[in-house]
């Protein structure tokens, strides 16, 4: 934190890089930004934290010219600036690295860099110029990328570097990064932060949007907290702490650590061996993995998204087919899909909280009560007679679940799409956990879920473990894996790279395994 003092010195002399005064923006009845004022010092890394829907992305989209603010002013380097579109933002020296990259996948790195800023009708001179600039930038900021590689062949971390280079090539002085680490391994994330610090030390200004408090503490100089469209606080990072930030984000005290006792292990419930899954194009996504889960334990599956975790959940949940063997209490499950589906898995006591609750776990156009029996709608307790469903019973059952899981608003007749992400997740969890399953498969239980709800969801999962059930938890959030699971297996490229007892490992070791380092090296 030695740079901290030099930074503050610089701040006092220059006008802020960005100053927002009274920015407001509404979408229909939703006030996404309410009278937001903030100032970002030149040559600083300024973090913006907030829960989903707090208005961070809207604010940055206004700054980058995607949306027009209903009210308010923007000053760039002390000059009042209108930003009607992204061209104007680029002209003002603002560059943005989006959460989902905006790259042409089958172009080379160089072609992507010059796209839209070619110097003339012929691209050859532009490419040559870009090549030399790129070399310079790479050298200066540790941003090495092969300029002639096709973008789709690059790793996600390198693709992100191309996005940063694109912005720098357009002479951005102010760089906005929206949730940049969502797709990175911890090592890649660390490298990114190193790049960001380099950029800052060269006088660039960086705005980092994230929901991970650890990154804020780790990488930023100043942090602004948003809650429900309002800016609730701006503090020096050195003078705050994660619990304080969490409280500012949620509006009440939050327990960041999961309270749990050591596991009481029972017999092996789930046995997976040599499990293989091919996707619809015939590409092998699971390459013969084996593991066990015992009663009373949570096995975590860590890994960067897209390394086979989704396929693992789907084949266990009866959604896709595979080869190999899955045994529940010693009985072999059918993996061909000829004699099994989601129904037969449920009948075997396997409950599944899918990774993508909006695409798989819920019917968004159904009301909450219709969703509360989804997948279990064959259960006799939901039937009135051979022909009719017992809607009154389903409704009562849903109302009870909503109360038990504190789902808000507690109105079972509301469409699923009208609940917040956290409450949607709770609807799925309530449905699956209250079946009291033998095995619970959980994918990304807290993705897009507010901090307040995360605490509750973690407690429910631990309670099910303590009731002696076997739990398989897939998460890309290492913190979640580390705090919630008893054992952890790391997946990389369709294989299990290694297995550890959670208490005996750390982020660094898991991070190396996530990046594909072999077990011996890790």
């Amino acid at each position, binding site marked *: 934190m030695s740079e901290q003092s030099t930074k503050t010195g610089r701040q006092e002399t220059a006008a802020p890089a960005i100053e927002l005064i009274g920015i407001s923006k509404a979408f*229909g*009845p*939703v006030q996404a930004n309410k009278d937001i004022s903030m100032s970002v010092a030149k040559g600083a890394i300024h973090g913006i934290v907030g829960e989903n829907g707090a208005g961070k992305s809207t604010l940055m989209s206004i700054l980058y010219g995607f949306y027009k603010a209903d009210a308010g002013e923007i000053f760039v380097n002390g000059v009042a600036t209108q930003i009607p579109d992204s061209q104007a933002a680029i002209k003002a020296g603002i560059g943005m690295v989006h959460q989902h990259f905006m790259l042409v996948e089958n172009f080379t790195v160089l072609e992507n860099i010059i796209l839209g800023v070619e110097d003339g009708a012929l691209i050859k001179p532009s490419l040559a110029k870009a090549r030399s600039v790129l070399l310079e930038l790479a050298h200066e900021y540790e941003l090495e990328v092969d300029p002639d590689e096709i973008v789709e062949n690059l790793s996600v971390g390198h693709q992100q570097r191309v996005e940063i280079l694109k912005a720098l090539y357009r002479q951005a002085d102010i760089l906005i990064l929206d949730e940049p680490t969502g797709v990175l391994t911890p090592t890649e994330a660390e490298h990114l932060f190193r790049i960001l610090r380099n950029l800052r030390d060269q006088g660039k200004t960086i705005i980092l949007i994230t929901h991970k408090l650890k990154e804020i503490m780790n990488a930023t100089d100043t942090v602004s907290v948003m809650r429900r469209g309002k800016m609730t606080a701006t503090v020096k990072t050195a003078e705050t702490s994660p619990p304080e930030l969490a409280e500012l984000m949620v509006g009440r005290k939050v327990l960041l650590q999961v309270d749990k006792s050591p596991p009481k292990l029972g017999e092996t419930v789930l046995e997976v061996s040599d499990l293989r899954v091919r996707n619809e194009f015939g590409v092998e996504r699971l390459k013969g993995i084996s593991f066990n889960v015992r009663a009373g334990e949570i096995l975590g599956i860590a890994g960067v998204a897209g390394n086979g975790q989704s396929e693992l959940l789907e084949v266990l*949940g*009866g*959604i896709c087919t595979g080869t190999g063997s899955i045994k529940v209490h010693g009985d072999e499950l059918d993996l061909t899909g000829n004699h099994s*589906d*989601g*129904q*037969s*898995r*449920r009948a075997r006591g396997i409950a*599944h909280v*899918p990774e993508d609750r909006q*695409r*798989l*776990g*819920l*019917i*968004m*156009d*159904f009301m909450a009560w*219709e969703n509360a029996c*989804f*997948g279990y*709608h*064959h259960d006799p307790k939901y*039937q009135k007679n051979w*022909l*009719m*469903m017992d*809607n009154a019973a389903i409704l009562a059952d849903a109302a009870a679940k909503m109360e038990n899981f504190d789902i808000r608003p507690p109105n079972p007749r509301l469409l699923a799409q*009208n609940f917040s992400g956290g409450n949607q997740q709770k609807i799925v969890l309530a449905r699956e956990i209250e079946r009291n399953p033998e095995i619970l498969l959980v994918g990304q239980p807290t993705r897009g879920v507010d901090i307040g709800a995360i605490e509750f969801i973690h407690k429910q999962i631990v309670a099910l473990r303590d009731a002696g059930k076997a739990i398989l938890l897939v998460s890309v959030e290492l913190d979640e894996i580390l705090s919630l699971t008893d054992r952890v297996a790391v997946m990389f490229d369709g294989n299990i790279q290694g297995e550890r007892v959670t208490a005996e490992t750390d982020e660094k070791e898991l991070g190396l395994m996530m990046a594909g380092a072999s077990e011996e090296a890790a």
Partner: protein
Amino acid sequence: MDKMPRWADVFLVPFINLVLAFLVAGLVVLAIGENPLHAIYFMVKGALGSTSGLGYTLYYATNYIFTGLAVAVAFHARLFNIGGEGQAAVAGLGAAIVLLAFDWPHWSLALPFAVLGAGVFGAAWAFIPAYLQAKRGSHIVITTIMFNFIGAALMGYLLNGILKSPHTQNAESLPFPAGAHLPTAHEVLAPLGIAFSKSAPLNISFLLAIACTVLVWFLLWRTRLGYEIRAFGHSESAAKYAGIPAVKITIITMLISGALAGMLSINVVMGEQEHLIKEFVGGAGFVGIAVALMGRSHPLGIVLAALLFGMLTQGGFELLWEMPTISREMVLVIQALIILFTGALNNLVHDPVERIFLRLRKRKS
């Protein structure tokens, strides 16, 4: 939350659509030098002004209820059944076979079997596209359209061949036995002292249409099959997660849809013509798509929309009669405008109305 109230979506928007459609249609009438108010007067009078007109209106509405329900049931599973026309035509064959097979002593005995015959044939005609969609992924819109043509060709072939009545030059079957005659509105209402036009083709198939409406509502919102159909329609991926079998749902839904479309032949072939003729469906299969769209795929909405389209059809014929300058094509244009505004251009009205509601709500809060 950020939506307008349901009543506005269900009643206000279609109403505004309708007014717009009539305004534009009025301009068209004005452009050929006629008074649009006269035109509307003749249409409404023609459709509702006499028991004869009313009888025709409800007769057409009966057809549209059947085809509208057929489209709606399929649409709840996100299957676009464009094949009502062909399914109804082939269902006519099923009804005719049943009705010609015996010398039926009474209509009440003949009707259930005719319904069964028509339903099975209509469903069978929907089965092939359904199977191809479920197992082979052939798009059901394409296959059902093609099956309309195949169905028409098949019926033409049979009516010119094996089914052709030897007593006439026309491509039509022998008349059905007298015992299979369905009571008309005139015959049903006369004993009650209500005088109803003798010439109107309205018959008790109308009650069958109402029964089908209730059954469709019951199926969709009270049974497990209906739950699965709706879940499958809203999200195929979630249905897979829940273990709802896609092949089974696709095929069963299309069978029900085809059978419903087939009920049209009970109204037309058994109720009115009393022998099988060529091209008796007369476009009602396609009108069913507009009816289902305007009725928001809800049985009650479909009945209301079918009544409207019944009025348009009957009123349109009356208009031809009363205003010689208005041609048959003109009437088609007016009907098409209504379909355009209520179906295809729905969002033209829907979105602004929704915005007004949201603004009002915001001001209140």
